[in-house]
């Protein structure tokens, strides 16, 4: 096997290689392999693996390793087939040619290349004809400009307003809050007691509007500096005290 991976040197007695191959000219390892098979004029169904593998490895040596990964994989495959061919075979057992899978792939690839030839020919013919200006990024035709006068627009609005039924409107009347009343009560209580709790001002029977009025009244008075409001921790009872500092002032 060492002969296969040895650097490629043209045989001294044979003719020099008939063509020098640029690897970038090949679209893949199968392409290169097919070229070698043609060049060597061998039967695809009976590929001399040792010879082709040696040629193959020689060709990919000119490439950097990363670029050649796919070619290296093919080289390894060729060497494995070569090794399998070297194994002694039992005449009685049915022998599967290790090259069969490679031949199948080569034929498949070759068939695809024929399609490529057809596509290339057709594509070249089509390239020689122009269509109307090509607008690939505009598949949807632009919308026509809106042709509408102001009076038409107003007439449409009027028509729609007349046609559509008046929607059933349910008026929600807000219960008037009595903030001044609440402030009067709080002041009266603070006259009697220096400090108190919010729950002292309200009871379980208080209506929402009463609660809201009281809270707003407290905030208003706090703003005016008549009292201080303190809540030690969330949801705790609110403590209310006369603002003695401002009273003194």
């Amino acid at each position: 096997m060492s002969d296969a991976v040895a650097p490629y040197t043209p045989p001294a007695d044979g003719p020099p290689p008939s063509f020098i191959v640029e690897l970038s000219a090949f679209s893949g390892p199968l392409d290169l392999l097919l070229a070698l098979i043609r060049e060597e004029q061998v039967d695809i169904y009976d590929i001399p693996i040792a010879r082709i593998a040696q040629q193959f490895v020689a060709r990919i040596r000119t490439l950097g390793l990363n670029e050649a990964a796919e070619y290296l994989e093919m080289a390894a495959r060729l060497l494995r087939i070569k090794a399998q061919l070297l194994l002694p075979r039992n005449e009685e057992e049915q022998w599967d040619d290790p090259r069969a899978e490679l031949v199948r792939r080569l034929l498949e690839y070759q068939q695809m290349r024929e399609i490529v030839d057809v596509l290339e020919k057709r594509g070249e013919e089509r390239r020689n004809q122009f269509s109307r200006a090509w607008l690939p990024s505009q598949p949807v035709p632009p919308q026509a400009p809106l042709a509408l006068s102001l009076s038409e627009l107003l007439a449409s609005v009027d028509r729609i307003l007349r046609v559509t039924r008046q929607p059933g409107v349910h008026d929600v009347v807000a219960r008037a809050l009595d903030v001044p009343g609440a402030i009067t009560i709080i002041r009266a209580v603070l006259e009697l007691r220096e400090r108190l709790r919010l729950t002292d001002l309200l009871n379980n029977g208080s209506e929402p509007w009463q609660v809201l009025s009281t809270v707003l009244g407290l905030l208003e008075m706090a703003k005016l500096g008549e009292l201080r409001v303190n809540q030690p921790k969330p949801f705790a009872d609110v403590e209310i005290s006369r603002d003695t500092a401002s009273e003194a002032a």
Partner: protein
Amino acid sequence: MTPLAKLLEAALFASARPVPTEELRGLDPESSPAAIQAALEELREHYDVDGHGVELIEIGGGWQILTRAEYTEAIERAQLASRPHRLSAAALESLAIIAYRQPIGRLEVEEIRGVNVGSVLKSLHERGLIDVVGRAEGLGRPLLYGTTPLFLEHFGLRHLEELPRADELAVALRVQSPAVVAEQAPMDEPVAAVAASSGNG
């Protein structure tokens, strides 16, 4: 020309893409499909017989007015329009496989080509020549690709059936002994064709 043929001519002129026959029918609902067909033939003959610089072509599942090939060079020299770029050999190979095996996943394309095709498929997708047509059932539910109407347009095909059937393709390299092959100095047909294309690619 008949009024219908003139109407079709105007519509085809206005459209940047090939217009399918069914869409042409929408121009005049009273005309029968046969009448549309006859009008298209009339328009084609009108361009051919009277000697116009354009011709009517059936392409990409529809009809399109195209300039005649003999004026391409002059038009391009005057920089009025430019021809699209040729596709690379790698792109053509991948397209050929997808056209024949669609719907097909990336791995199967790679198996046939023997190389990685991820970036090639991406650029073909960006150019609108292939599209995702579904997902396979297998592990990871890989994307399946197929060709688009733009693919047909790009290669001047009326429909996919216009490509040679798989069984019509010459069977690969000939099954002959090396000696016989060696006698025929210039290799002909498929082998020569491939040699030429791989040289270009």
